[in-house]
């Protein structure tokens, strides 16, 4: 059972409006036969100063979790207790993991420790990714596909671990290119399933103006004799690219091949 706590954010109890239910708290109130109302002992401003500037003086209901903070690492955890079901425990623990990850990311920032506005982006990471991509491209040109894949993977890892507050469009654009290139390298090694997944990731990241990746999806599927699926993807790619567009030519050519293969297989 979740203990219900009435949080008094300002010591103006007399003027407080009647308790207002927030989110799911009301449901919890009704479910609990005997609810526990704890009034925190420290609502004088001793333990936390920042929110005292809060204007609203209303009672906020919330579910109190007996959280624990590791004094050294500042990691927040929820101690095992019989009060929660396993699913509850798991959701809270997952959320706390996210929180701890975010906290580590915030700590690495400059003093105010708040995420900067989405734009402009910190150029350091982008530069590193570009560098990795350049060297991977060079390895690819030298037919050193395994090395190229390794470098692309590094670059992709860096792109995926971009802090969350950086614009998502940037991450998509960057990763679409990287995945597309890695798909190319995988295909050169005839690793069709790997190439397929990478190409799919690329088109998923950036569906428009990404002919090469669409072509690679179709190609990988055709190589694995999955013509029906290849046809579906190619049609979608052509549709997005525009039927008459110059860039759609290769897709159409591949589609013709796939259709021929499909006919052959069905005829057999």
């Amino acid at each position, binding site marked *: 059972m979740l203990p219900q706590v009435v*949080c008094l954010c300002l010591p103006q109890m007399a003027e407080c409006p009647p308790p207002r*239910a927030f*989110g*799911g*708290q*009301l*449901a*919890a109130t009704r479910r609990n036969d005997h609810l526990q109302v704890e009034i925190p*002992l420290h609502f004088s401003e001793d*333990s*936390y100063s*920042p*929110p005292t*500037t*809060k204007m*609203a003086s209303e009672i*906020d209901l*919330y*579910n109190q*979790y007996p*959280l624990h*903070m590791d004094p050294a690492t*500042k990691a*927040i955890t929820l101690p095992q207790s019989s009060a929660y079901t396993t699913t509850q425990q798991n*959701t*809270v623990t997952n959320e*706390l993991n*996210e*929180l701890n990850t*975010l*906290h580590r990311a*915030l*700590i690495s920032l400059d003093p105010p*420790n708040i*995420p900067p*506005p*989405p734009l402009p982006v910190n150029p350091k990471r982008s530069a590193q990714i570009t560098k990795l991509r350049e060297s991977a491209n060079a390895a690819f040109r030298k*037919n050193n596909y395994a090395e190229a894949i390794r470098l692309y993977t590094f670059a992709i890892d860096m792109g*995926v671990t971009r802090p969350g*507050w*950086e614009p*998502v469009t940037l991450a998509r654009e960057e990763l679409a290119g990287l995945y597309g290139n890695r798909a*190319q390298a995988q*295909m*050169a090694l*005839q690793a069709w*399933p790997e190439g397929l*997944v990478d190409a*799919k*990731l690329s088109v*998923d990241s950036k569906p428009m103006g990404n002919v090469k990746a669409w072509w690679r999806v179709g*190609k990988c599927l055709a190589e694995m*004799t999955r013509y029906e699926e290849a046809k579906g993807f190619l049609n979608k790619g052509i549709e997005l690219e525009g039927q008459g567009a110059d860039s759609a*030519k290769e897709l159409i*050519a*591949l589609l013709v*091949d796939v259709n*021929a293969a499909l006919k*052959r297989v069905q*005829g057999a």
Partner: protein
Amino acid sequence: MVNWLSLAVPLAYLGVLIGSLATFSSLYRKRKAQKAMSLEPWFPAHLQRDIYFSLLHLDPSSQSEKKTPNVPESVQKAALLRRATEDIRRVMTLRNQKQALSVLLQRGSVGDDLWQRFMRAEKEMEEEVRDVVSEANAYTPNWGQTIFQSANEMMNNEIYRQRIKEHEDTLEEERVWWEKKRTSVKESFMKELNEDETSSPQTQSQTQSPAVKSSETAPATPAKAAASVQGSDDDAVLVEADPSSNQASPSGGKKKKGKGKK
């Protein structure tokens, strides 16, 4: 002199009327309020918000004997950011649902209860957002202006990462499938080989193709790289070929190549 007796009847009438109306109105209002209170909330419990407040009220003395320091501000900021992210998600959900719900309400497809629940959720979210902004401003001046921008990007990034993960999870499955498929095709091909001696020239072409490929890919630049994959076309077609189309496949592969290079 007023005749009190004759006035008593209308006065009593008025008294009863007003009294009953007042009773009715107060009862009605009470019931309505109760009903509104008993309505199920639109969203489930706001976990991030609960955690944020739990952290604020984490009482150092109530922990263990040893003195634990107060929760550092950076943790609180992180928790606030998580809360803002969840708020964004909820506000978006509400915004998406509003249009559809109002149409449904006009047509009478949904009850008034649902609409009331929705309106309440909307009002709550408004207050919640205002609260988050003022708390953010309290931590760092002007953070309130950007916290929701950051939170929005964080939400979108999270969704995007989720999708990446979903795709990457399919990789193992695909790999297993292809391994199986390839071995089965190979087996049937080997059987074909044993049955038919005439297929030996084709195996030669299979061994040749890697060499052909490497010579093709030597000058490969990313733009030209598409052509290099074409080189691998022949052997793949050979592997996949089934008995009936076996003879036709090499020429088919060449045709493919020609078209691809255009």
